[in-house]
């Protein structure tokens, strides 16, 4: 077995204005670990993390793909300059490199990186908050997600659609309150298939890490053709993916 690793918590730098690795960060890294062999076979050239925070996730990704994917180049962004500094320290402490840019989502990178990102990872600010808490400075930018926690997520999804290459994969953390099944339907209309890689429930929240990829069979040039593929079947498959969403159907015992 190869000696793949993730970032070590005691080497992850910190700052009072930067979100520390937490359940959601661990869920995302666990999802990437579960996907590690797929990712290696995917031969990504450009990997991007939007909202890198402490650097725990991008460092883990660089470590777990390691030399076997030495053809990969890593880029990470955050709107919080403190987070960028902390990420830089975390990367250096682990001896890996990612290019860092202080920016909002991928502003300034969108034009030139359009259609070039093979792996995009996002642990977005998903906590439902009043809309006026979105976009504040400092650590609030790590969690304040506006109505249903979707304000920033929805902006990120638009950018993801621009950035992802034809073979690109997006991994994103969502909370049940974000209505992940609706997110999947929305992405499906843009031609993306999706599946849950990791599901984690605590007393307070239920997290999903969802993987999205372009599916040629779903390529649609308008909403009409989406409907022709049979919305009933789509909903059926999504229900089976989100068994805990009891407002659709109470079938939690079918969860694998």
């Amino acid at each position, binding site marked *: 077995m190869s000696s793949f690793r993730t970032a070590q918590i005691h080497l992850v730098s910190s700052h009072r204005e930067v979100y520390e690795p937490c359940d959601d960060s661990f869920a995302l890294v666990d999802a990437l670990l579960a996907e590690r062999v797929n990712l290696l076979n995917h031969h990504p*050239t450009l990997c991007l993390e939007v909202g890198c925070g402490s650097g725990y996730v991008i460092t883990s990704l660089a470590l777990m793909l390691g030399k076997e994917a*030495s*053809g*990969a*180049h890593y*880029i990470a962004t955050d*709107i919080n*300059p403190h987070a*960028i*500094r902390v990420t*830089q320290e975390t990367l250096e402490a682990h001896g890996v*490199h990612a*290019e*860092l*840019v*202080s*920016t*909002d989502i991928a*502003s*300034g*990178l*969108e*034009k*030139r*990186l359009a259609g*070039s990102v093979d792996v995009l990872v996002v642990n977005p600010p998903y906590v439902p908050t009043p809309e006026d808490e979105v976009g504040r400075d400092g650590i609030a930018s790590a969690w304040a997600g506006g109505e249903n926690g979707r304000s920033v997520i929805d902006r990120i999804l638009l950018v993801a659609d621009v950035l992802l290459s034809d073979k690109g994969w997006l991994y994103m953390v969502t909370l049940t309150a974000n209505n992940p099944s609706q997110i999947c339907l929305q992405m499906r209309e843009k031609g993306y298939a999706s599946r849950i890689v990791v599901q984690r429930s605590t007393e307070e929240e239920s997290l999903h890490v969802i993987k999205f990829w372009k599916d040629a069979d779903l390529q649609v040039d308008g909403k009409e053709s989406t409907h022709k593929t049979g919305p009933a079947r789509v909903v059926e498959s999504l229900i089976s993916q989100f068994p805990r969403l009891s407002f659709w159907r109470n079938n939690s015992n079918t969860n694998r």
Partner: protein
Amino acid sequence: MRLLTHNMLSSNIKGVVNGFPLRIEVEKVVEKQVDFNPDFLKNMFSKIEWKPLVDASRAMGYAELPEEAESSMLDSHDFLQRFHHALLELHLEEGALICPETARRFPVNKGIPNLLLHEDEV
């Protein structure tokens, strides 16, 4: 900041049409050795705007790139090594990136470009 990143950055100010390439203002350049990977370079070549890379590397003190490049040159080990050095090993540690249209200055400190905009620029 590697020149690969410079090659991927455009001015993001609202209303700017030709925000690429950003002009480099150099205060400090650092060279860091990176493992040579021909496959990565071949994959990246088609994504790189060549002239901006040539100008950027010259601004950073490296003038060994040919003025023009085409994919057939990827067979040359010498070319790949120059491309590798310019793209990955030259870091802008301190300086700025200047918007070609508005001359807005995006600072680069400790190797990190700051593209955060003021409220009136979004």
